[in-house]
């Protein structure tokens, strides 16, 4: 279980007052649940995801993982406790192959067949990709799918996906939904997915709406989603 207690994050800007990106957020994410975090751009969703992974350090509040205070724990420490993070814009590496990345993610030596299986899950023809470098020769959509495959390979109790749909074409998107459905159907791990996509929100258990650095609404999908959809263009959460 992941608990965020009175979490805040400020950055210093020019001028007298620091800018508040996250304002006193408290949230509890239960085990084996699929939580979608949505809300307007610039509202603090990605920052919240980075705070969970330890990529950013909060300026106030606490993060508890299964009761353990991990607020001061670095990225490596959190990764080893079982938290994974899929980047909105996956990182490119010269010389590191897709196989290497999947193997590092899995944390053990993988047979070619096993590594290929993860790639197949995200709709990549494994044979074509396994020995390619994770560099500029891959398209944004390909990188994104490899990123998601690496998170599946990690198979940790909590996986945070930062806008997995960004940069993915429509065909891939349908497959992506299937991937998340499959992950969720197993009910073995928790998923936190930051998304604007109705189809992703539609398969979540819980939806959290974040705007202007604060939680505007949270609850079961069936309670939150209709409000979000009815209010397109004038949604009360987005106001």
């Amino acid at each position, binding site marked *: 279980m992941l608990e965020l207690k009175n979490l805040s994050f400020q950055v210093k800007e020019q001028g007298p007052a620091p800018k508040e990106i996250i304002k006193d957020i408290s949230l509890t994410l239960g085990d084996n649940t699929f939580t979608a975090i949505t809300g307007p751009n610039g509202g603090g969703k990605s920052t919240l995801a980075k705070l969970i992974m330890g*990529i950013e350090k909060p300026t106030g509040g606490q993060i508890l993982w299964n009761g353990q205070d991990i607020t001061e724990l670095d990225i*490596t420490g959190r*990764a080893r406790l079982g938290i994974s993070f899929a980047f909105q814009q996956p*990182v490119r590496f010269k*010389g*590191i192959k897709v196989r*290497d*990345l999947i193997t590092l993610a899995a944390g053990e030596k993988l047979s070619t067949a096993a590594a290929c299986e993860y790639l197949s899950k995200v709709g990549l023809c494994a044979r074509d990709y396994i020995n390619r470098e994770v560099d500029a020769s891959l398209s944004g959509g390909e990188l994104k799918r490899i990123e998601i495959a*690496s998170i599946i390979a*990690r198979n940790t109790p909590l996986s945070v996906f930062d806008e997995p749909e960004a940069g993915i074409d429509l065909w891939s998107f349908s497959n992506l939904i299937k991937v998340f459905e499959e992950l969720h159907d197993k009910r073995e791990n928790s998923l936190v997915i930051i998304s604007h996509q109705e189809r992703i929100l539609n398969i979540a258990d819980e939806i959290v709406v974040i705007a202007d650095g604060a939680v505007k609404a949270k609850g079961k999908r069936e309670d939150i989603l209709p409000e979000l959809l009815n209010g397109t263009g004038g949604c009360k959460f987005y106001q």
Partner: protein
Amino acid sequence: MDEIQKTLLEQVAGLHDVPAGAYNIRANGESVARNTSANIDIVTKQDKQGIDIVIKPGTKKESVHIPVVLSQSGLTEMVYNDFYIGDDCDVVIIAGCGIHNSGDLDSKHDGVHSFFIGKNSHVKYVEKHYGSGDGNGQRIMNPETVVNLGENSFMEMETVQIKGVDSTKRTTSATLDAGAKLIITERLMTHGSQTAESSFQVDLNGEGSSANLISRAVAKENSRQLFLAKINGNNRCAGHSECDAIIMDNAKISAIPEITANHLDAALIHEAAIGKIAGEQIIKLMTLGLTEAEAEEQIVNGFLK
């Protein structure tokens, strides 16, 4: 050969034992083992140190190993190896030098490798340099490679110097006839207070000739590197050079690419990029459970692979 020499041999040539095919193994300034084949002859030079490697026209799928190992502190040598490769060959040549210096005197191996490659031949040339030993004496290597590529021939050259060479000055020059192609891939890592200089000069003389120089370099700690790549396009040709370098700690790297078009249809490109490891790359690998140091190591190893 003793154990140290065997270890060096494994590092530079990947050899546990004598290789298959033609070979000449030089240890502490002397040829200690040699084998020739029906198509490949190896002859000791009479006027100076070194050997001539003569490969008959039409020789296919054969290899030559010519590793050099030095384990005697204070040994300095200058060796000339000439390769005469006939027309229509397809061969692999594996050279390399390993120096183990546990004494206080400098050990130095300078070598000039000259290639005379006939028409329509394919040559893969691999050269690996390695140093070990904890003495105060320096381990110095200055390899010079001269390549003459005949019409429609193709040479792939891979050079690797990853560890333990205190000072190196590498010089590679090549002239290409019509339709000839040259690909050079260099991997270089320096650490401590090592210095490395690598300079290339490629003359694309023949119509339709092409060259691609790819250098990947990592400089750690207080080491220094200089990369010079000069390509002259003297005909309708294509030339490309690329220096990609990572600096760490207090290291310094200079990259000086130079391209000269002496012909209207010479298409020449150079690229050079030097920078530290991108922070986001380290963060990504840390999210997979690696420590910062492990992430750096993984990135450097991948970069130099």
